[in-house]
Every structure is written in structure tokens, then in C-alpha cells.
């Protein structure tokens, strides 16, 4: 205490030399049913995980009950299904809410899930100011990349703003939203785009909170302090570290200069991370373990830009949803880094490095210009509605794919060193992938039926009316939502009530006017083949690219649509969230030659079955060919072929021209 700490030592507030506390360790988890997920959470907590990160299934995220026809194939697939407060009681059984830091990856229905959490606390007798955690609640990136939006942008931002206004004093330890750049990188964003889009998003939100005028300046400063971010970290880890430093510096400058935030604490850039999934490969999947480790270094090495919370993907995510063991392996990485290494003993390692300083300055400068451009358009809402941001992302993604295709960007095991010994990790009984329990959905459906039967229908009706009235009048909707939760209103009922008032939104797809930069002999050969196919058919071959079901990860489908146009197909891109029936109908009415369906949520078998049945009953089976793309395990691929699907494309089919050639083959064969 008497000796001054040396530059390589960290001191705490009282001047003692200490070791840093590690970040929060999370594992993104949830599947099958509330009961199965509860068991998983409890076992993860026993393993040393320090915060919950809940994955909800797509019907819950998109505001449908589990028994809705569009929801059925997706129940419990990518997360836990939550239909009502009864499910929440099961999900959190034996877990003390007051001690948990709970992160919910929930957006379109974020207000509803937080209302359920608050209602659960009330029924348990826990004071809500003890609740801590995050609702992701960033609709901007949903419109751009992830797809689980429900309402139009204005209304979505109103919901977010109301949640900030409610949480600030009622649940002060709750992050009402998390500004996400994570999904933008997954959709192809460059580091600069990640910086600019996320910060412009945060600025638009703060501008809105200011304009609504519900906060005085003291409250507003605290609200600024509640803004947190969810960021991605890719394989170029030096640049990624610099990106994080640029984020911190830019946020400090923006909150100080644009909003006059005096308290330094409220200007701090607080962020959680999941490292990149986009770059994880299906081929030689064991290599992904190294990628995850390296990407983790990017957001932990620099103390001044270290994440607050971290969740890691699993090595086999390009193959299927991860199994508990795969997640445990990733958690162990965090624990080794935090507790075995000396990382947490040192202050920032890069302060004063001219290389890092220069790189950070460059990123900041370009990002600032881009932020200005978006603000000149009027902020993020106009930039979404006009398709400006989406087009920029689709362009970056197309460029990335072109670079991998022509070898300018090396991906080990994919376009270089592709020959390898078979991986013993894939040799287990389960083939190294996760198998969902098909019976889990029926338990969820039974619980839903039971809830509907046991509740007081008058109270349900009344609470939904109050919710709609608040929505119409512009008064706060949160308390009304809590009352709905207590009345055992269901997720679908809550969302439908607001759909009635706000309507549903469909954003621009961003693929119009996009071009691939790919050229060369392959492209010319394909164009020639398509020209001769055009002579055979009498029309340019027409394909419909679509995403059946609720999965909103549209990047893959968009790149396919752009590539298909590039080589000369006429493409109907029908966007996301369509029923299999709607896709079949569009295919028949527009008389396409082939349907390309993209599914990443794991419900490909059900959806393929529905599409093939639909084609059969409209007499088009056989004439309209079908191909599928997505994360589709081998065993499932065989099932799809049996159903009559011609080709299956998985993440290992990264060569766009190979995919296009296959599609031409399929159409040619049908007319041979």
C-alpha cells in the first residue's frame, strides 16, 4: 500500500494492487421445452456459468402461440417455447431470480417477455428492483439481419423507448435493450459498418428518448448509462481489438459532445460479446475451436476494451445446434483464459502502441463519416425504410462471398488445405450433432391447452383491451402487458393485439440492384448454358428463392438470389417468414421452374414435407423442382431426398457457381 504500484500492476480504488474480476460467463441456451431448458440452466449454473442467456424458439420471438400453423414446425427448435406465465414458472423453477443476471435474446416480443419476468417476480414475492439482466430488444438489426421483427419501425422504437422509461427507476439494474452489431457482422458487415451502424442506432434511440421528453437531464444521463451493446468478434483479431477500442472512444465522444453527459461512468462503453459464427466452417469443423479461441483474444486482451460478458459459439455450430457438451467445452475456454492465464493481472497492454493508435484512428474516422451519412438521411428509421443500410450489408456480404470464391480470402479447410484426416469428433453415436426430442413439442402444446382452460376469460379479454387502448392512445403499454401476463394471456394473443393496432412490417429485401463482382469462365459458361436453356423452355428459367417458416436469417438466401440473377436466372425472392403454402402458391402462380428453400432453424424436414405435399396437391410436383439449403445434417438430407427434394446445399457448399451449376443441372434434367 505504501509503495506506488508499477505500470504493469492494476490498483483498485483504495490503491491496492489487485487482479481484475473476470467478465460474466454465459452460455446461450434453451431448447425443446420449459422443463428441459430449466434442467439445462441448472446444470450450466452448477458448471460455473455466472449468468443466464436464454434462447427462445422462433414462435416466441415472432409472437405466435406454439399451436399456430406457422409455428408448429419450429416449436422448441432453436430455443425454449414460452406461451404464458405458466411456462416461465417452470423455466425458472429452483433458480433465484434476485441472484440471477438474466440475458434474454428477445426482440419483437421483448416487452412481453420482460412483462412475464416482472409478473413472475410478483407472484414469487421478489421485489422487482432486484432483477438484473438484459432484453436484447434491438429491432434495427432485426430489420437488417435477424428477422424477428413484428411491428413497423416507428412502433418498434416506441416500445423500446417505453421500456427504457419504465426500467430506469423501476428495474434500475435492467438493460432495456442491447444495441447489437453482432448480427450485422453475421450479415457481412465490415468493422467500419459495424461501428457506424451500431452507433447510429444508439444515437437514434437517444434522440428519440430526448424528443419524448419523459426524462429530466439527470434521468437522461442515467438512461445513457443504461445503453449497452452486443458486439461480434471475427477472426481478424487485431483489427477486432482495435474496433473495440474505437467503439469505446467514439461512444465516449458522442455521449459527451452530442448529449452533454457529465458523469464519466455513464459514458462508458459497456458491451457483451458472442464471437463470430459466420466464419465457422462445416468442413474440418474441429478447426472452429481454434477460431473461437483466437476471436476471444480480440475482445479480452485489451483491458480498456474488454467485454463485460461473453458467450461463445460451439465448434459444431455450422453442423447443427450445439449439444450440452459442446457448450461446456466453450465455457471451459473462458475459464482457462480467466483463471489459468495471467491476463487479468495487467492493465491495458496496448496503450501507447503507435500501431494500435493509428488503426483505431483510421477506423474512427471512416466510421464517423458513415454515421454522419446515416444521420443526414434522418437516422436509422429512414435508413432502414429506404433500404440504404440493408443494401450496404448485402453488398458487403456479396463481396465477402466473391473473395472466398476466387481465393482472395483464405479459409483453411474450405478453399485451402481442404484434404484432411476424418475428425474423430464426428464419430460418436450421435455423429457429433444435437438431436432435438420430437416429443418435446407435445408437452408444450398440452401445457398451452391447460393454461387456456384454467384462466379467467373475462380477465384475459379485459387485459387485452387495456393493452390495445394504451397502444392506440400512445400511453405506456408495459403495465398493461404485466396485467396480461398475470391474466395468463398467451404470447400469440399479446402480439396479435398489438398487430391489430400497429400492423405488421415487411422491410426492403436489399437485393434489388445488387451485383456480384464475380466473373471469369465459370460465370460465362453458366450464362451460356442458361441462354440455351432459355431457348429450350421458351422463357428464361425462373426460380423462387424463399425462406419458409419463421427463421429470419436471410443472408444465405439473399446471396443465392443475387448470384442466380448474376448468372441469368429470373429470380423471385419472396423474403422471410412465409408458410410453405404461400411459397407453393407463389411458385404455382408464377409458374417457376424451381423452388430454392433456405432453412437454418432445424425444421427443414417438416417444411420440405409441407412444400412437397403442397406441390403434389396443386399438380405441380415433378414439374416444379425443389432444392434446399441450410444447416442440414446428413441423415436429414437423406430424408429430404426421399421426399423428392433434388439437391441439398449445406455450409460446405460455399462455391456459389457450384450451387448455380447444380440448379441448372436440375432444371435441365427435368426437361431432358
Amino acid at each position, binding site marked *: 500500500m505504501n509503495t506506488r504500484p508499477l505500470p504493469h500492476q492494476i490498483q483498485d480504488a483504495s490503491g491496492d494492487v489487485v487482479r481484475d474480476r473476470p467478465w460474466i460467463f454465459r452460455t446461450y441456451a434453451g431448447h425443446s421445452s420449459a422443463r428441459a431448458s430449466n434442467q439445462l440452466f441448472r446444470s450450466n449454473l452448477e458448471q460455473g456459468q455466472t449468468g443466464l442467456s436464454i434462447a427462445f424458439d422462433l414462435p416466441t420471438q415472432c409472437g405466435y402461440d406454439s399451436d399456430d400453423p406457422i409455428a408448429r414446425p419450429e416449436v422448441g427448435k432453436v430455443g425454449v417455447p414460452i406461451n404464458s406465465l405458466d411456462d416461465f414458472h417452470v423455466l425458472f423453477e429452483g433458480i433465484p431470480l434476485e441472484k440471477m443476471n438474466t440475458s434474454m435474446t428477445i426482440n419483437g416480443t421483448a416487452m412481453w417477455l420482460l412483462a412475464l419476468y416482472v409478473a413472475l417476480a410478483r407472484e414469487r414475492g421478489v421485489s422487482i428492483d432486484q432483477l438484473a439482466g438484459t432484453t436484447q430488444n434491438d429491432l434495427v438489426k432485426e430489420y437488417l439481419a435477424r428477422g424477428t421483427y413484428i411491428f413497423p419501425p416507428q412502433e418498434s422504437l416506441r416500445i423500446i423507448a417505453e421500456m427504457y422509461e419504465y426500467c430506469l427507476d423501476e428495474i434500475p439494474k435492467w438493460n432495456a435493450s442491447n444495441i447489437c452489431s453482432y448480427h450485422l457482422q453475421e450479415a457481412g458487415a465490415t468493422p467500419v459498418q459495424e461501428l457506424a451502424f451500431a452507433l447510429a442506432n444508439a444515437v437514434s434511440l437517444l434522440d428519440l428518448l430526448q424528443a419524448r421528453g419523459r426524462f429530466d437531464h439527470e434521468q437522461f444521463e442515467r438512461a445513457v448509462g443504461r445503453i449497452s451493446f452486443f458486439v461480434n468478434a471475427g477472426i481478424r483479431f487485431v483489427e477486432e481489438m482495435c474496433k473495440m477500442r474505437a467503439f469505446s472512444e467514439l461512444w465516449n465522444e458522442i455521449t459527451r459532445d452530442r448529449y452533454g453527459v457529465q458523469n464519466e461512468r455513464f459514458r462508458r462503453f459497456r458491451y457483451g460479446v458472442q464471437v463470430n459464427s459466420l466464419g465457422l466452417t462445416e468442413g474440418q469443423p474441429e478447426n472452429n475451436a481454434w477460431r473461437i479461441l483466437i476471436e476471444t483474444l480480440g475482445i479480452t486482451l485489451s483491458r480498456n476494451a474488454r467485454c463485460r460478458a461473453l458467450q461463445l459459439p460451439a465448434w459444431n455450430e455450422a453442423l447443427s445446434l450445439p449439444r450440452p457438451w459442446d457448450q461446456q467445452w466453450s465455457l471451459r475456454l473462458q475459464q482457462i483464459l480467466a483463471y489459468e492465464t495471467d491476463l487479468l493481472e495487467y492493465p491495458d497492454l496496448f496503450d501507447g502502441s503507435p500501431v494500435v493508435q493509428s488503426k483505431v484512428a483510421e477506423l474512427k474516422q471512416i466510421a464517423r463519416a458513415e454515421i454522419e451519412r446515416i444521420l443526414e438521411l434522418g437516422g436509422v428509421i429512414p435508413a432502414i425504410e429506404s433500404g440504404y443500410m440493408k443494401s450496404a450489408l448485402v453488398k458487403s456480404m456479396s463481396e465477402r462471398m466473391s473473395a472466398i470464391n476466387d481465393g482472395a480470402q483464405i479459409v483453411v479447410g474450405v478453399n485451402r488445405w481442404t484434404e484432411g484426416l476424418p475428425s474423430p469428433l464426428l464419430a460418436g453415436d450421435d455423429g457429433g450433432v444435437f438431436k432435438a426430442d420430437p416429443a418435446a413439442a407435445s408437452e408444450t402444446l398440452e401445457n398451452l391447452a391447460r393454461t387456456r382452460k384454467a384462466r379467467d376469460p373475462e380477465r384475459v379479454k379485459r387485459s387485452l383491451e387495456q393493452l390495445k387502448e394504451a397502444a392506440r392512445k400512445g400511453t405506456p403499454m408495459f403495465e398493461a402487458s404485466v396485467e396480461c401476463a398475470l391474466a395468463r394471456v398467451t404470447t400469440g394473443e399479446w402480439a396479435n393485439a398489438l398487430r391489430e393496432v400497429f400492423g405488421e412490417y415487411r422491410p426492403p429485401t436489399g437485393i434489388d440492384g445488387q451485383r456480384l463482382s464475380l466473373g471469369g469462365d465459370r460465370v460465362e459458361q453458366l450464362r451460356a448454358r442458361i441462354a440455351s436453356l432459355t431457348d429450350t423452355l*421458351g422463357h428464361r428459367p425462373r426460380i423462387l428463392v424463399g425462406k419458409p417458416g419463421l427463421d429470419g436469417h436471410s443472408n444465405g438466401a439473399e446471396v443465392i438470389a443475387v448470384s442466380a440473377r448474376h448468372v*441469368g436466372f*429470373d429470380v423471385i425472392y419472396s423474403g422471410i417468414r412465409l408458410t410453405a403454402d404461400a411459397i407453393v402458391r407463389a411458385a404455382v*402462380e*408464377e409458374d417457376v421452374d424451381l423452388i430454392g428453400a433456405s432453412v437454418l432453424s432445424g425444421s427443414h424436414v417438416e417444411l420440405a414435407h409441407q412444400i412437397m405435399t403442397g406441390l403434389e396437391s396443386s399438380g405441380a410436383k415433378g*414439374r416444379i423442382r425443389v432444392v434446399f439449403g441450410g444447416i442440414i445434417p446428413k441423415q436429414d438430407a437423406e430424408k429430404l431426398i426421399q421426399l423428392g427434394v433434388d439437391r441439398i446445399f449445406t455450409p460446405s457448399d460455399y462455391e456459389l457457381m457450384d450451387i448455380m451449376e447444380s440448379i441448372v443441372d436440375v432444371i435441365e434434367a427435368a426437361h431432358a
Partner: protein
Amino acid sequence: MTATRRVRPTTLEEFRAGVLAGERPAVARAITLVESQRADHQRLAQELVTQLLPHSGRAHRVGITGVPGAGKSTFIDELGTRLLERGKRVAVLAVDPSSVRSGGSILGDKTRMERLASDPRAYIRPSPTAGSLGGVARATRQGIIVVEAAGFDVVLVETVGVGQSETTVAQMVDTFLLLMLGRTGDSLQGIKRGVLELADVIAVNKADGHGASEASRAASELASAVRLLEPQSPHWRPPVLTCSGLEGSGIDDVWVQVEAHRHTLEQRGELEDKRVRQEVDWMWALVKERIESELRHHPALRARAEQLTQKLRAHATTASRAADELLASLDWFGNDRDS
């Protein structure tokens, strides 16, 4: 590959029966047929359309145009849904000049007409991508016959308000509806005066929220602009209305005017005249297209044209003398001129 039953109409009779029974797959296949570039398909298409002709003509053919961003899709979705509620059957065909190119294309986004697209009583088909606007026009005209024969009683032909496509569409419909925007400041928004002249009904869309007052201001400016134009029919002066496809307000009034227009034409006996005139114009347009194409490909003429081009380049002749010489080298004009 699984062997499956092929339920595709292949013979003329199968096409005819399927379309007349209003079977969706048959209608879709028939439209692909009339769009086809293959000579044998075109012959079959001619035969089919001729046989369907007696069953067509009963629908109200309405063209809808507007600048990009005027909210056409939302408007059509709202209008179409209302027409379905009144028991009408609605078909939407699109003419998109941007689709006229040699490479592949992204076809019109049906998801922008979500309710209509998911209603089994409606049929939506985007623009064909043929080699020329003329080719698209041929396909769409025949497409109208097909959907009419299949029992649709309102045919909406949508086109984006750029290039020549508005004129093309105006020449194949009974009523031409122009959608405008109130927001862009300039009341005529760079839309060509010619398009205003084609319009039978004008609606300023997006009259919602903050746009409402701008929309009504734009509407009154447009109304005075329209008064300066010579009307197409002595009995009809194009009305200017405001509406909101998003909120659904004013849509019914627009449709009342669209129906009133047709009713007026019918009462005055102008509808039949208009349709016949369109057919005759179309015949001559086809003749012109064919003659020009034949001339351009005529070997002797091409050689002569090449020589004349050289002379023009050397400033050795004028365009009108060159045209005279070129025409003189054709027997069927030359004989007349000699005598």
C-alpha cells in the same frame, strides 16, 4: 429423381379447358405460354388466345402507374383486398420496363402485396422478362385475355412510371389511374406532362400522418394543372383525389371514380370504341415493328444503309436525302415513285 405424374397442360384443348375452368396452375401455364419466345409456343399461344377471346372482355381493365415510391404496391394490396371483400375476383399483372434486359432479373416483390398474395381469390403475376417492351406488351395483352377467360372480373395492370411503359399500359386498359405523391415539394414531381394526359383518375397517395396536408395541397395544384389539359373524352374530366394505401382512407372513393369512368364510357358507347381503337392501334404497332425488323435484316438494304451511313459520316448527304435513297432502293416504294 422421383417419377411423378405430370399434370401440365400440353395440348391446346387442355390449356383451353383448364383456363376456362379457372384452374390456377393452368392459368399460370397459359401465361408462361403467351410469354414464351419459342416459335412453336407462340403459334400455340395465338391459337389459344383466339379460342379464349369469346370468353374475355367482361372484366374492368385498370392500369395503375406512379413514380417509384408512390406506394403502388400498398395501394393495390389495399384496393384489391377491398374488391375481394365485395366478391370480385382480382388479377394483377405487372409491366416492369426494368425487366427488359438480356441478363437475369429480380422479379417484382409480391411480398409487398401481402394480403392479396395470400388470398386464393386473387392472382398476381409479375412482368415477363422478354427482349423488348414490345414483347412485354404482347405478353401482357394476351395475359389479360387469359385471366379474363379464367373468370377474373377486375384486371389491374401495374407499371412503374418511368420510360415508355405508361403509354404501353394506357393502350391496353379501360381506365388509367395515376398515383402521385404529395411530399416531394414540386407538385408535378418531374412526371411528364404526357403521363398526366393519359390519366383518367388521379390520386395523391400517402395522405396519412404528416403527409395529409401536403397531399391535399398537391391535389389542388394537380387539379388546376389537369384543367389546362384537353380531356380524352368530352364526357369525362379526370378527378383528383387523396388517399392512403397504408391507412386505407380514400381508397373506396378512388374506386368509385374508376367505376364511374368506365360507366360513363359504357353509357356513351365509348368503351367499345376505345377497345377497338386499341386493337387497331396495336395491329399497326405490330405491323410497324415487323416492317422495321424485316427492313433492318434485309441483306440488300443493309448494305445500302451501310454505304449511306458512310456518306452521312463524311457529310456528303443529308438524312432526308439518304432516307429517300434508301426507300427508292425498295421495289414496292420505288415503283410508285417512278411512275
